[in-house]
């Protein structure tokens, strides 16, 4: 049974000085799916995310990756096992060139990363593969640009190329479309769809339009606990989800709106 799951959490819990941010979360991420984690602000999505990537240590509970307990491992160690995360704000290396960004990622498996006596020219052997990856996200013409000069949406695309370079088995995306304009959102959503082939993706996402388009399964978090789970139809029909998002359960309100203003209004209503 557990063979179908890439990642599982068992009664995952995180306390911050008397405040329980995440309470007994049991997640089961099925292999080969896109799994979305949604919920109103402060629901604990990012905390769960940081627990999964080991940037935070759980108070109690277990995390299993391919059946192995990874609860006590270092962030870099699980990255080497094939669990690669992205960050809420774009995680690029701003003063390296676009090509170098991808190359740093490819370089890790070369086994020469401690070789301070060698010329960096030996890394040129990775350029072809790096260009392929840049082409796959449509950045080939920017290869020599210093990354800081790229527009925001392109930076996120670069981040995905950098992540792909590691051939991750499981990609964890933290709000991949956050802070983007409409054109960029569609661009990145298409990109995620494209790279999801043969991989498992877990994403935290605010934009329900993107979630409805991409996710095979959705987990809704509220106040640190799982409210409900299921596909988009099931979740969006659940009155409790509407209540969590809108503050009141109004039948005429539908959840599948990508309207940012409505989400903001919902947050205010929640307060």
């Amino acid at each position: 049974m557990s063979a179908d799951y890439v990642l599982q959490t068992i009664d995952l819990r995180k306390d911050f000085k008397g405040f329980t941010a995440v309470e007994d979360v049991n997640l089961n991420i099925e292999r080969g799916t896109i799994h979305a984690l949604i919920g109103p602000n402060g629901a604990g999505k990012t905390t769960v995310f940081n627990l999964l990537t080991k940037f935070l240590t759980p108070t109690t509970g277990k995390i299993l990756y391919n059946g192995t307990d990874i609860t006590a491992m270092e962030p870099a160690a699980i990255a080497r096992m094939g669990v690669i995360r992205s960050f809420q704000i774009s995680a690029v290396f701003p003063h390296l060139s676009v090509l170098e960004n991808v190359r740093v990622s490819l370089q890790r498996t070369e086994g020469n990363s401690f070789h301070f006596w060698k010329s960096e020219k030996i890394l040129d052997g990775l350029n072809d593969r790096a260009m392929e990856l840049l082409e796959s996200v449509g950045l080939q013409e920017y290869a020599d640009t210093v990354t800081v000069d790229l527009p925001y949406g392109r930076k996120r695309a670069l981040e995905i190329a950098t992540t792909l370079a590691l051939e991750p088995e499981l990609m964890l995306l933290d709000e991949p479309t956050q802070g983007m304009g409409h054109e960029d959102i569609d661009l990145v959503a298409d990109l995620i769809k494209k790279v999801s082939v043969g991989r498992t993706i877990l994403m935290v996402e605010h934009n329900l339009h993107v979630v409805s388009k991409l996710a095979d399964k959705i987990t809704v978090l509220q106040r640190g606990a799982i409210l409900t789970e299921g596909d988009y139809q099931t979740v969006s029909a659940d009155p409790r989800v509407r209540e969590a998002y809108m503050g009141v359960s109004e039948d005429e309100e539908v959840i599948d709106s990508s309207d940012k203003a409505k989400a903001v209004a919902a947050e205010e209503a929640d307060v």
Partner: protein
Amino acid sequence: MKINKLYLALFIFALIAPAALYPVFLMKVLCFALFACAFNLLLGFVGLLSFGHAAFLGTGGYVTGYLMMHTGVTPEIGIICGTICAGLLGAFYGKLAVKREGIYFAMVTLALSQLAFFFYLQAPFTGGEDGMQGVPRGHLFGIIDLADNMSMYYFVLAIFIFGFWMIHRTIHSPFGQVLKAIRENEPRAISLGYNVNDYKWVAFIISSALAGLAGSTKTLVFQLASLTDVHWHMSGEVVLMTLLGGMGTIFGPLLGAGAVVAIQNYLSGGEMGNYVSIIMGVIFVVCVLAFRNGIVGEINKVIKRNFGS
């Protein structure tokens, strides 16, 4: 291409400089330049502000001084031993320090270097407050007499070029690429699977060994190893040199060290001698407020703005 010409011009200048300038002054500049370059490897290329680099400068100096005075080894062996000892100390200190970041990293390195200071103050072989005086320069490879300032100058120049090349190579190596990635975005480097602390540690060792090399050489030049070199003032001075010249640039520390040493030498001779600390302080404040990128950083900016492609 342009940068190669610059290297060549500097090299030729360095070869003929002792004809016009006092060789001991030039050697002092080279020693401090190497020290500042080693420091800049950490600050400018890994983003780690060490406030304890004097410990490595001093360790190199004391070890070389002791060996030269009491064992009669040739100077190259003395210098190599000094460098290795500083590197070993760096390996120990670095292992502890890289566990922390930012201001805590600076404080840990400062505290550890103060430990070294008190050790050298108390240890009988260092001569305490008097320091080690009259360290013989010896005969290089047992043949060339270094008592002659000109021979000594070219020996120091060779050491400096080696150290500079070493740093240049480290920055432009696969290892250097990872260092830059860590400087740019540490959490992302971790999420790509790099054990960033190990990389910082290796960089720390390289930096401390080269600081030790600078200290060893300095001891031979002045035939003196003293507490000044391990004092935290020295750790502060190297920060000033690096910031003044331009942090994270290849030539910045070289220029910064040259400027600081030249100002100190010039002032200490005249009636302004008592005000050296004040003047250096004012320079530091002006540097931080007005041109934060340092001399070389500002020049690079002007070049980029006017001639950038």
